[in-house]
Each structure stands twice: as C-alpha cells, then as structure tokens.
C-alpha cells in the first residue's frame, strides 16, 4: 500500500523503536504533524523552543543510551536547533534531528522560512542528509539511525522538503543498512592490547584516566572489574563520571581544571597512563607541554582521529571500549599476569598523602549557604540515586565534585560545548525516559534563564523535576575568572533585576521554594522529593563570592593547582 512521505516518516520511527519525539510544529512539517495526529504509538512532546527539543532528546539519549529524536520546522526551527545539535556533537551523543525544508521546487529561492539546514549544520553533525526523492525516504531514515548510533556516536540531521512528505510511495523499512564508506572498527588489534597489558604489568606508578567513551559504550562493568583486578588508581573526566563508582577508594575524583589534587598530581607523576574513551581535552591536560612528563601512554578510543591528536601516545588501540576491555580482562585474569605490587603500594602511599590534603573541604560554619553543601545534601537526600543534569558554570563543577555518581548515565551535562540552558530541557528528556526516577537539575540563576520557558512544557506533561538553583547573583564562573585574572573588574557578570523565582515557578503552576539558611536545606529537599506531579523550583541563596577549587589556571600544568 502506498503511504505519504509523512506517514512513511511516522512508520519508520515506530519501526525503529522510537517512543518519544521532541519537537515543535511549523509550516514545512505540517504534513508530518498531521500524520502524527492520526496515530497513537509515537508520543510527541511539545517544547517551547526548538533548542529545548534538542537538549531534551539529548538528555533522553544520555540517560537511556538510545538515540534521541527531534522534529523541527524549516528556517528558524532548524537554526534554533543548532545549539543543541552542536552540544550533542561535542559530547558524541546519538541523536537524529529531522528538519522541515521548503518544497524542493523552492530550494535556493530564498523562500519563506528557508535556510540551508544542511550547510548550517554540516560542521556540527556526524553526518546529514537531504531527502529529495520519496523513494529514498525510508532508507535514509534507517541510515540516519545507523550512523548516529554506531562507531563514535553523534547527531545526524535529515532535511525533509515539504513536497517529499506529501508524495506517495510503497513503504518498506530496511532492517539492515550499510555504507561502503563507513565501517567503524569495533574490535581492537589484539597485538596492541597485549602490548598494553604488558605495560600495565610493568607499571610502578599507574593511572587510569577514563572519559565519556566508557559511559557511551556501556562499559562500566568491564571498567570496574578491570580497575579492581589491577588495583590501580582511577580518575575520570567530567564526561566520564559514574562509569566507575565514585565512592570507591580506588577513585581519586575528577581530574582537570577543577579536578582533585590527588587526581591531577597522580596524572602528573604517573609512569604508565591508561586512557580509556577519553580525548585529552584542554580542560583535562592543562598545558600540553607539561602533561604527564614521565608517562608511557596507552590510549583506547573508538575514533582513530582522537588518538595522537593532542598528545602523542605509545600504545594506540582503536576499538570499542567494551570490546577492548573485555579482551584486556581475559589477559589480566591469566595466572601469568601480575603487577608490580610493591611499587604500586608505594605509589598508593604517595597518593594517600595527596588525598589527605582533602582539597574539596569547605567551611560551612556561618549562616550563609555554601553551594557545595547544597550538592552534598542532595546526594544524601537522594542516596546517590538521582539523575542529575546541570547547566554550565560553577554549579556544574560543584555538582561534578560533590555528587558522588555511583552509576553511569546518571550525570548529564554539556561537557564539550559548555551550553548554558542545557540542564532544564535535558532533565525533561530524562524524566520522560524514566517517569519514576528522581531527576534534579543543578543550575545557576544565570543558566536557568536561558531555557526557563520549558517550565511550561514541564507543566503540560506533569514532569516532577527538582530544579536546584545555586543563586549567587553572579555569573559565577565568569566572576571567578574576573576575580583571579582581571583584578576583580566584574564586567557584566552581575545580573540586576533577577526575577522572583518562587513566584515565577508558581505562575507556571509549579511549586517554588526560597531557601537561605543552611539549616533548612535538608528539610526543604525532603519536602520537595514528595511532590511528584510538578516541578519544585528550589532557589538556594548561596555565598555570593564562593570559588571553585582546586583550579588549574589556563596555561598551567596539572601540578600547578590553586588550592584555596
């Protein structure tokens, strides 16, 4: 039977197993919205701004591991989605974004709501497709999901001209597709894996450094088993948190610009560095000239272009984290394998000395709320089981430092692009994926205003997100840099005329709370957790000039931290 392009689109998504679609209608996608109206298998969530649709789909993808799916209209619909697409691209999140397009006959004519979506999104997608022929529609959709979810994942854009969604064709959704030009490697080279394991056995001051790749590839179990068998210290990037249980003694905390003293000194002084699904980002390495001066480096990554991009490595392994770690485990479990136990024990003595500095300690004696305490209390109240999303800035770093993530896919933040406005819509996507879970969005009074309109969406779908605003009246991270590096000239980092967030939340039909005493934090949070049918917007008035420590200033080495 022949279906219209719009009907084919809907059938494809259903056959692909998509359950949630995030979007916003407009002229170029009206045929599709009509087809959505006439079915009940695929649930569409109406956001209030297209950027939020992409972040919500992104949050959904990060929490579930399934691709997030977005539908927006042409022109401004597509351009509004770009920030979310770039966010997903930098963090390698699988996502398929469908953009409406003007009819093929009008493409290139500066038609109403026309923009070159393929051209605009090209630098921030894994790949994009323009469907010009109805006969290619189903296959292209399959290819989009295939490319987005395999190899190093990423966002894929499919541009759909309006006339294509009206034409008719027979429906056939391929179960398998392939591309002659795209064959991502899965299995690592066994010779390289053996060399890596040999190097681990020789290590005297080993260090495991893992990133988002371990989370994306669902390799948490293998990583945890390998780390424990080796007994090596492990640190994780901002994107990697949760892949290894944070409360575990082998875990040294996050590394990098706001990493712990022990993690960064461990990196600086190690003799064998085992990098797993991490990409030696500048926020991790600090000054590249001073990075791990005495280490031999093993680097496991699914993307060959990540290897030796920033740091030259000694043993590169291209492959999926899960499959390579599985191979490594086999070798490490052999009776012939051993580590240099004495040397590693001495290394641990050194690490414990660094750890005893207790670099994350803070002083909560006064009657002003310390932002760190809010995050710690959230950890206690949720027993470490919440999904935590964040925006970008100081609150993001405190969330990463003080919420001890036990499981992967629970920490959801924009690491690569650093997108303010990510947290609230991302939380929306997470709550839609897991309706019964506790989802908290740790944010600041600056970031939250970048997508605050989504409070309306949250009301429409009754999503009980806990918004934890660390409100210091400043764009805190900007202010911190200005304090340190610009002689306290606080240019534009102070916001006058903040809204009354309690009333604002109430006007959207949610619950608002203002908390300004340290003693009230816990009770307020426990109260908030009981509310399950709408958002609780918790506005915590915190110490205005608290800074994030430790800090590696830009251009410094990992051993050159500012501690207090």
């Amino acid at each position: 039977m022949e279906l219209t392009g719009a009907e084919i689109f809907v059938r494809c998504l259903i056959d692909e197993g998509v359950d949630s679609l995030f979007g916003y209608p407009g002229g170029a996608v009206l045929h599709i919205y009509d087809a959505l109206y006439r079915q009940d298998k695929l649930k569409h969530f109406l956001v209030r701004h297209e950027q939020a649709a992409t972040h919500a789909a992104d949050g959904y993808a990060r929490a579930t591991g399934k691709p997030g799916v977005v539908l927006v209209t042409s022109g401004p619909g597509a351009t509004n989605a770009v920030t979310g697409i770039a966010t997903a691209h930098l963090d390698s999140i699988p996502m398929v974004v469908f953009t409406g397009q003007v009819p093929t006959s009008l493409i290139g004519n500066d038609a109403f709501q026309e923009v070159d979506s393929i051209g605009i999104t090209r630098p921030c997608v894994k790949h994009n497709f323009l469907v010009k022929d109805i006969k290619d529609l189903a296959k292209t959709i399959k290819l989009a999901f295939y490319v987005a979810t395999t190899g190093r994942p990423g966002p894929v854009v499919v541009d759909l001209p309006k006339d294509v969604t009206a034409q008719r064709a027979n429906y056939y959704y391929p179960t398998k597709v392939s591309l002659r030009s795209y064959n991502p490697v899965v299995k690592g080279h066994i010779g390289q894996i053996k060399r890596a394991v040999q190097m681990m056995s020789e290590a005297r001051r080993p260090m495991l450094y893992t990133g988002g790749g371990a989370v994306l590839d669902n390799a948490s179990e293998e990583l945890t088993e390998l780390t424990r068998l080796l007994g090596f210290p492990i640190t994780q990037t901002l994107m990697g948190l949760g892949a290894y249980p944070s409360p575990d003694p082998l875990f040294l905390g996050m590394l990098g610009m706001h990493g712990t003293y022990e993690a960064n000194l461990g990196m600086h002084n190690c003799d064998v560095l085992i990098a797993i699904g991490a990409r030696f980002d500048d926020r991790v390495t600090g000054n590249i000239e001073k990075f791990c001066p005495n280490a031999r480096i093993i680097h496991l990554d699914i993307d060959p272009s990540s290897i030796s991009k920033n740091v030259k490595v000694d043993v590169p392994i291209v492959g999926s984290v899960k499959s390579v770690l599985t191979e490594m485990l086999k070798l490490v479990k052999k009776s012939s394998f051993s580590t240099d136990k004495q040397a590693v024990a001495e290394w641990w003595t050194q690490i414990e000395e660094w750890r005893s500095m207790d670099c994350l300690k803070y002083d909560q004696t006064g009657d002003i709320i310390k932002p760190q305490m809010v995050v710690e209390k959230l950890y206690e109240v949720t027993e470490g089981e919440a999904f935590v999303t964040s925006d970008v800035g100081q609150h993001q770093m405190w969330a990463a430092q003080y919420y001890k993530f036990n499981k992967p896919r629970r920490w959801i933040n924009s690491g690569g692009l650093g997108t303010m406005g990510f947290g609230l819509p991302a939380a929306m996507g997470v709550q839609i994926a897991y309706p019964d879970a506790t989802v908290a969005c740790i944010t600041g009074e600056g970031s939250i205003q970048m997508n605050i309109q989504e409070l309306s969406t949250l009301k429409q779908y009754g999503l009980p997100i806990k918004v934890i605003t660390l409100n210091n009246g400043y764009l805190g991270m900007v202010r911190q840099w200005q304090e340190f590096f610009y002689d306290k000239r606080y240019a534009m980092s102070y916001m006058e005329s903040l809204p009354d967030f309690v009333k604002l939340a109430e006007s959207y039909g949610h619950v608002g709370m203002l908390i300004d005493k340290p003693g009230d934090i816990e009770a307020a949070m426990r109260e908030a957790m009981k509310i399950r049918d709408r958002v609780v917007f918790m506005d915590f008035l915190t110490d205005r000039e608290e800074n994030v420590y430790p800090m590696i200033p830009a251009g410094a080495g990992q051993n050159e931290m500012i501690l207090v």
Partner: protein
Amino acid sequence: MRHIISILIENEAGALSRVAGLFSARGYNIESLTVAPTNDASLSRMTLVTRGTDEIVEQITKQLNKLIDIVKLQDMTVGSHLEREMMLVKIRVADHHEREEVKRFADIFRGRIIDVSEQTYTIELTGSSSKLDAFIENLGKIKVMELVRSGVLGMTRGETILSL
C-alpha cells in the same frame, strides 16, 4: 612538508563542501584541490595538496577518513607517484623579439601555443607543479596577462591503484 592526498568520494551533492568545510573548520591549508567524476559514475576523485608537519597530515587523513562520504583515500607522497598539473597562460608579446623568446621557452618546457592574437600568445603547459613554477619564473620581464592552473592530479606508479 607538501602532501598530495587522493580521495575517492561519493559522487553526491555537497560532498565537496564537506571536505572544504573540514579544512577551514580545523585550520588546515589547501594549496590546490581538484575534483571530477571517475570511470565509476558513483565516485568522484579528488586530489588535494596540503602542507603540514607529519602530525598535522596524520590528523588531516584521519579527519578526512571520518567523513561519511569519503570512501577511500591515500597520501600519494608516501610512495613513488606521478604528479601532473596543467596550466594555461596568456602572455603579452609586444614585438618580434618577445614572440621568438616565448616560443623558445614554450618549446623548452614542452608547452604548446594554443591561441594566438596580434599581441598575445596562450600557452598550454603540463607537468609537475614545480615545472610550471619554473616556466613562469623564466619568463622574466615578459608580461603574463592571465594564468589558470588546474591543480595537481596524482597517481601511484606501477601496479598499486586507489580503488574500492
């Protein structure tokens, strides 16, 4: 160092801009770029000349390989290879002496005069890029009015080929 990278790419709209966009986005330089269909209608062949350290060229080839439309690529400069570029150059020949001079240069460089007018010669010249450079240099004071180069084409020597 100068590298010649040959690329087989899906013959699709937008494929060229993916390559060009990659170079501008990542700050790599392109000295020349040529692209045309091959004997396989589904494929285009692109030849790209770039300069960079070994590390940069390694990144360039890795990043190119990551583009979904690129089927295969090869750095020609790694092994023994052939390199050709074509140039058309229109020259002002004011008098008999200059005509003689230009004709002589064209012969020495195995170029052909393919168009003549009262005061101009247009010469077609094929060879390595450095040969074309040498020709221009040798013209000395003789005035070049217009010059167009095709960009480099490359192919490996002997049995090895770049194919699917």
